């Protein structure tokens, strides 16, 4: 009888974390749908490697480095939350934001040089996919930057909502993981 | 119910109708069983003064067999429908029998363009003939149809032959049929293809052998007989 009361279901995990993971699950399916389509379309026809060769591997590698580093600063911000280190939280968040913006800046430069070289989104199936996939990814980076910015501002007033850094981090790392796959899919093969 | 089907005039239509009627029997039986049980129970166990409900939770296996055994029967019926169905599918869509009677049907907004290869039996040569919305074939011969589209998806539908095949632009889809009865059969498009979809249709003319020869002679007067019948 009272045994049932003892089995009370106090939350084991933060609700926000469960929520974010479910959200990420659906995001995996969105990018998964695009990547699936890309893979089968690419395997179905030839000549895509030659087109991919017009992309700049050095620039993309640099951008990968930027994004990987931003993931690290993001998780360091989370570590600072654990220590109650408000300064650390703000510094690392700022690094993440700046690195995110750097990524977007480099991406924009890349786009413009590709467009100048005459590779439009409509040029061929490869470029259809290239612009759509990287574009959607860039929008996700932008959303992450905005989220981090709001946390950065909030952290000025204290660490009351600091557990959100972990949630924003989950999202930010997910965006990073997507790029980890886009990089070889589009640039290296 | 089966009598609502249009008259079947193709060699494989019977196989499809047989599957339809097999499923019809299986589902009709379950329809009567389930609906019958519902009505019976509603009547028998309507609320009566002085009679309470029985307390059964149905979680124990001994109780649950009342729903699990019927479910196993459903599974058996399913497999039956699948195996019979697999044969019919293999016959209709699985392999296209060879035939030297070929036509090309191209869907476009909003009619069918039908190309006959002419006496040389080859498409894309000078003696090809193109007609709009008219498909002429001899009875009892296998006809191979190459389906193409110029714009959007159309669907090649011959209700009397139980043939339906969507046409994808950018791909060539092969279909075939063997009409068993001379006559004139309607050939609508059955995939939404724009504002003219409703009314996009043609006619299939199935000719007896001699009438078909006659038609070929009229269409390709220059060609020698015999070759025409072989080629188109």
């Amino acid at each position: 009888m009272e045994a049932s009361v003892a089995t009370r279901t106090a939350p084991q995990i933060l609700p926000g974390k469960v929520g974010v993971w479910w959200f990420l699950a659906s995001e995996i399916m969105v990018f998964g749908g695009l990547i699936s389509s890309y893979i089968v379309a690419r395997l179905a026809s030839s000549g895509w490697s030659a087109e991919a060769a017009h992309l700049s591997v050095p620039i993309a590698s640099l951008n990968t480095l930027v994004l990987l580093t931003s993931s690290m600063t993001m998780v360091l911000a989370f570590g600072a939350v654990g220590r109650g280190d408000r300064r650390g939280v703000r510094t690392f968040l700022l690094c993440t934001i700046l690195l995110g913006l750097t990524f977007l800046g480099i991406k924009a430069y890349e786009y413009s040089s590709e467009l100048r070289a005459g590779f439009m989104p409509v040029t061929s199936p490869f470029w259809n996919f290239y612009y759509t996939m990287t574009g959607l990814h860039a929008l996700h980076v932008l959303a992450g930057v905005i989220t981090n910015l709001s946390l950065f501002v909030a952290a000025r007033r204290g660490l009351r909502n600091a557990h959100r850094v972990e949630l924003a981090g989950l999202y930010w790392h997910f965006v990073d993981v997507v790029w980890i796959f886009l990089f070889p899919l589009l640039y290296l093969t | 119910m089966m009598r609502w089907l249009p008259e079947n005039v193709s060699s494989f239509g019977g196989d499809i109708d047989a599957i339809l009627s097999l499923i019809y029997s299986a589902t009709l039986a379950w329809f009567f069983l389930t609906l019958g049980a519902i009505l019976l129970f509603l009547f028998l166990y309507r609320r009566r003064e002085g009679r309470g409900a029985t307390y059964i939770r149905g979680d124990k296996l001994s109780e649950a067999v009342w729903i699990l055994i019927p479910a196993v029967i459903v599974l058996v019926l399913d497999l039956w429908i699948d195996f019979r169905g697999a044969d019919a599918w293999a016959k209709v869509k699985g392999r296209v029998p060879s035939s030297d009677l070929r036509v090309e049907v191209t869907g476009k907004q909003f009619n069918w363009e039908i190309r006959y290869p002419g006496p040389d039996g080859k498409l894309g040569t000078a003696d090809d003939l193109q007609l709009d919305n008219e498909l002429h074939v001899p009875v009892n011969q296998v006809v191979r149809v190459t389906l193409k589209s110029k714009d959007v998806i159309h669907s090649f539908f011959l209700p009397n032959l139980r043939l339906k095949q969507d046409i994808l632009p950018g791909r060539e889809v092969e279909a075939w049929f063997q009409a068993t009865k001379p006559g004139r059969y309607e050939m609508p498009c059955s995939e939404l293809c724009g504002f003219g979809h409703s009314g996009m249709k043609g006619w299939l003319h199935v000719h007896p052998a001699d009438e078909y020869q006659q038609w070929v002679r009229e269409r390709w007067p220059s060609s020698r007989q015999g070759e025409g019948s072989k080629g188109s």
Partner: protein
Amino acid sequence: MTLERAHPNYVTVWVWLVVLMIAAVLVSYLPLAKSAVVFLIFVIAAVKALLVALNYMHLKFEGPVLWAIAVVPVLLVVGLTLLLFPDFVFHHH
């Protein structure tokens, strides 16, 4: 909650990620058969993704429920891709 647990060394993980990234770029220039290169590159990408998921996203420390939430969609995507093969990859125009 993850807050109280020992953290992995985030910087070490980062070093590994960078090393793997450089490895992937180098592999793409190797004079191997195309299929071998592609295979290697994607193995590397998978390892990188796993490193991020396990360490930065703390999946290492989570229970089976969050694991399932993360893994099931990945399996679905793989399944979807494979089921699309007959219609596109094995199909010749």
